[in-house]
């Protein structure tokens, strides 16, 4: 049986427990499940944030995440993975992104989730605009995130 890979780009919120259950329910071969959820923060440094708006490139977003999901499946012994990325307007405290990985081995589950998050940050075609104090500015990419993604590059 090939392991289930689920990728969804949606404006609706997601339910972490339901997504974990979807990967593990009725199975007794999975020993480790890691979930990462990214949440909209209410401030960035000293600046208050009223909301984020996430723009994405439909079609490419799914394709790009699928490429990295397939790479994760080939690099680690995974029994399933789920990636959900929201778009549209998102308020502080709301979910933005979810990655769930399931494996027999905890390190595979951890590493695959971290790998997928690092790539989502730097290569999935999404762009955040922050609303704060009446302004709306596009968030700038951070070198820090590029360095995190570069860790996974095979030399």
């Amino acid at each position, binding site marked *: 049986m090939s392991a289930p890979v689920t990728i969804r780009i949606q404006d609706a919120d997601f339910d972490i427990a339901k997504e974990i259950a979807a990967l593990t329910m009725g199975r007794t071969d999975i020993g480790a499940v890691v979930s990462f959820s*990214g949440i909209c923060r209410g401030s960035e440094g000293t600046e208050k944030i009223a909301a984020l708006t996430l723009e*994405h490139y439909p079609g490419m977003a799914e394709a790009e995440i699928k490429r990295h999901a397939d790479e994760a499946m080939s690099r680690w012994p995974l029994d399933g993975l789920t990636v959900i990325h929201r778009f549209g307007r998102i308020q502080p405290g709301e979910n933005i992104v979810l990655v769930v990985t399931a494996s027999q081995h905890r390190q595979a589950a951890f590493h695959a989730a971290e790998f997928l998050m690092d790539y989502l940050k730097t290569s999935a075609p*999404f762009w*955040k605009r922050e609303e704060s104090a009446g302004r709306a500015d*596009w968030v700038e990419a951070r070198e820090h995130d590029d360095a995190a993604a570069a860790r996974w590059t095979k030399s």
Partner: protein
Amino acid sequence: MKLKYFAWVRERIGKAEETIEPPPNVRTVADLMAWLTARDDAYAHAFETPKVIRAAIDHTHVKADAVIAGAREIAFFPPMTGG
């Protein structure tokens, strides 16, 4: 071919997509940016710092020296900030 623009590239150009037929001497993604830049100030503003602009051909990230022949859809956008 169809062009698509996202985030502040889209805002500066003033549209989300358009269909264009560049002349044959426009061979690469970099050529295409230069050719658009020469068309009017909106493109010039969007592409004023070419090295920060990212491009994709048919949903795959490419570098500025990628050849555009055969592309159905080329997209230009700023560095991604999802996740």
